[in-house]
């Protein structure tokens, strides 16, 4: 086995291990949060890292079994594409949560309407009267 392939497999094993630890961290965080929307957000992050690290695990298995091409490669990249899809959904959820709830949000500066106190109108009316 070529030296660069050995380094690549070592890196892939490290990435898969770190990814799995990461998944456990996010699941642990999700379990400790009571707000269901925040919980869903953390579960999405767990899903993202789980799918991406699964892609790395399939790579290690494929190289370990000396299989080039074929179905396992499609599965590997299927996991990666699914991981990115999960991230897209998590970003969408984040956006929705920030619009609906106050947990992770503040009002968008461009969208908030100024309160109509009526003071401005009265000043104009006063000026007209004067």
């Amino acid at each position: 086995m070529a030296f660069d392939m050995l380094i690549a497999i070592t890196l892939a094993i490290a990435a898969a291990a770190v990814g799995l630890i990461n998944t456990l961290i996010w699941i642990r965080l999700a379990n400790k949060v009571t707000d269901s929307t925040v919980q869903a957000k953390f579960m999405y992050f767990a899903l993202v890292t789980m799918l991406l690290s699964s892609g790395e695990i399939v790579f290690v298995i494929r190289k370990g079994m000396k299989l080039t091409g074929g179905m396992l490669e499609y599965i590997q990249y299927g996991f990666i594409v699914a991981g990115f899809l999960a991230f897209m959904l998590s970003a969408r959820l984040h956006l929705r949560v920030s619009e609906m709830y106050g947990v992770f949000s503040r009002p968008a500066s461009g969208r908030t309407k100024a309160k109509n106190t009526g003071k401005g109108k009265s000043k104009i009316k006063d000026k007209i009267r004067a």
Partner: protein
Amino acid sequence: MIENIHTSFTDPDMAFLMVSIVLGITLISVAYSLKARQKLMGSEKELFDKMLASMLLFFGGVLFHALREVAWGNSLLRIPEHTLYLLSFIFAIEAGLYVMNNSDEWGLGGI
């Protein structure tokens, strides 16, 4: 000859298809993320930046894979590819630890 050079996908076009799909999804994700990011501030924004950086690093790894296909199976490119994947997961772990440290500030209780 090309069949001998390509060490990865049986159909090299598949790599470009995969990268195109991932690129499309990444661009949509980044657009959504930047829209959501505008509404965040302080530590929440930093968490979001870490997750975004993690995804972009992983995407960098996918791009190196595509480059490997173009470079006729240059196997040395596997090293930066998997290094970027590893860095991506390290960033995501940092984001997880960040949530733990800031849980009180966000009103999530003591995580």
